[in-house]
């Protein structure tokens, strides 16, 4: 059995990637399953998806804990998530990154493949949806699936849902990534620290899970604890405001769903707290004088 874990962000299509891979594997005569794991769905939030491939029927209905391959659709996830967790010693990591594999620090030295899937997606699909491109890299790096099978499944699956043209463009994105994928070995400089999580025993649980402001070894809990939950890494784009054009109408301040636009009343000015800006672009969309432009957060 070959087990794959996808790390992505809501909206990048990790789930669709896992499903498309399963479909391609079944079309090659194998058995395959694919399933997602996410919190309350939000665009930009980290999501997991899994694919299992085997020659015979797969009965296991649990998550994948010891993957043969980890696929990372967004290298900003490397800062906050230990993507190599549980990876088999001879496993492979596939990363959407502009870096070469040998320059990517995963904290362990493992077989690694990289491709700049975001650039490929923006160029071919005109959107930072990297799932099909990264599948091309998967085919190249693992040899578990033929690129032709993937192209066929992508055309079929995306075509069925979004039209023939979109299907073809996505298949082309996969093929382009397949050709551009570089295989190497990751660096092992950074120290991997298991992310601390507050996990009390039931006896220590606050009654009814009612929480007041508190501090634990794993960080803040209760009201206000989300201050530690910086989401700047979610953003593909971020807003830039042209102060000359801005009329201080405050529509952006009013519409920002995250409350990241702050009024500086004594100067009659605005500032954006990029730590909590997910780059949704609502401010730019609402601005009546086009004073806000969305620019790539990470080139």
């Amino acid at each position, binding site marked *: 059995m070959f087990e794959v874990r996808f790390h992505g962000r809501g909206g990048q299509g990790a789930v669709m990637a896992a499903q498309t891979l399963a479909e391609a594997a079944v079309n090659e005569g194998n058995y395959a399953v*694919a399933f997602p794991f996410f919190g309350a769905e939000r665009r930009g939030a980290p999501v997991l998806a899994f694919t299992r491939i085997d020659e015979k029927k797969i009965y296991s209905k649990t998550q994948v804990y010891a993957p043969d391959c980890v696929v990372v659709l967004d290298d900003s996830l490397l800062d906050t998530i230990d993507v190599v967790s549980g990876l088999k010693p001879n496993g492979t990591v596939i990363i959407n990154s502009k870096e070469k594999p040998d320059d990517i620090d995963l904290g362990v030295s493992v077989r690694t493949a990289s491709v700049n899937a975001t650039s490929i997606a923006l160029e071919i699909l005109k959107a930072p949806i990297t799932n099909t491109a990264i599948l091309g890299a998967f085919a190249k790096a693992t040899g578990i699936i033929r690129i032709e099978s993937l192209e066929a499944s992508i055309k079929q699956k995306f075509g069925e849902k979004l039209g023939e043209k979109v299907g073809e463009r996505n298949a082309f994105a996969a093929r382009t990534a397949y050709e551009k994928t570089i295989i190497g070995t990751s660096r092992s400089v950074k120290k991997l620290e298991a992310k601390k999580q507050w996990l009390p025993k039931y006896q220590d649980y606050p009654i009814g899970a009612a929480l007041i402001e508190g501090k634990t070894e794993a960080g803040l809990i209760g009201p206000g604890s989300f201050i530690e939950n910086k989401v700047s890494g979610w953003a593909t784009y971020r807003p830039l405001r042209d102060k000359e054009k801005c009329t201080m109408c405050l529509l952006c301040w009013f519409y920002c769903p995250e409350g990241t636009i702050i009024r500086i009343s004594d100067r009659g000015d605005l500032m954006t707290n990029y730590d909590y800006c997910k780059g949704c672009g609502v401010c730019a969309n609402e601005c009546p004088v086009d004073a806000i432009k969305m620019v790539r957060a990470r080139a």
Partner: protein
Amino acid sequence: MKKVITGDHAVAIGAKLCRVDVVPAYPITPQTLIIEHIADFVNDGELDTKFLTMESEHSVMSAAAAASAAGARVFTATSSQGLAFMHEMLYATAPLRLPVVMANASRTLGGPPGIWCEYNDSMGARDSGWLQLYVEDNQEALDMIIQSFRIAEDKRVLLPVMPCLDGFVLTHTVEPVEIPTQEEVDSFLGPYEPDIILDPARPAMIGTFMPAEYIMELRRQTVAAFDSAKDVIREVNSEFSKKFGRDYGGLVDTYRMDDAKVALITMGTVTSTSREVVDDLRQKGEKVGIIKLRFFRPFPSEDLRKLVSNLDALGVFDRSISYHGGGPVYNEVRSALFGMKMPVINHFAGLGGRDVTEDQIFKMFELTSRAAKGEKVKEVNWHNTRGETV
């Protein structure tokens, strides 16, 4: 034809193949894909059905019962808080003998709010008069929609049926599913032909006020329908198996039970994972097996008594709690096995959607096997629960 699809998609295709007349719908995760797929079928002209977007689940079940009383074949789907919200109308549907089929995507019933798999939503409806079944994969999800209509509409039954599929673990998982052809399903499931319907041309009364002189007999009559349902479920299973080549065993299914000394009663997708665990343990020479509880209502007491008669100990998996101690399945099983001497050990796992891993299932077998050898083992065990030891 084989397709790689989600459990929700499989359920929707099942409903389409049953040529449902009316689908009152209201969205709720993780069921929403079901009604979205059905809406697509209707929109694309693949399904001739009255698709009603309702303002709440309570209205969904009201519309479902009313449409069924008017002679329509009715399908809908819900989950968790949605099932709770229609609770009142569930109780109206069964004693009026309206054979509605409603898929439930098993999801924890808040609070605290959550979206993952737990059976405390459907277990709360166990006394509403609905037949209730739990599936372990997407193929069974599709097949059981078809079987559910046959069972529900059988003149000896005429009761609503609630097939439950594990939220996310099946609803959002893709796997290969064999899709029967329309002709095959048509020859297995004919049109719904009730004797009495609400029709102005032939006036009838259904669900009117009933004083105490009448209700007791109505309750007794519904119990009789439950008794008949057991035979009908077995018949439908064997007919389905002959036609489609997939045998699910009827009320219960078994895996490697022939010479088993220790068994685990499982439900839903945990059954599937347990098959791998049993294969491993069998390779080590342990005589273990699985009893897959498919129907929780009607409860297969007679089948269970027969199946466990040669066991040294029995484990019971529960994915929801009845707050006084054991789980609903455990309490039901112990009641069914009353007078039999073997230890019966309760295993809680997967509440709130926590992943039920093979390790946990190994532990369930280990504890049950220890009880079989006469060791003292706790009756109720909480697996992978912080603050508990197993």
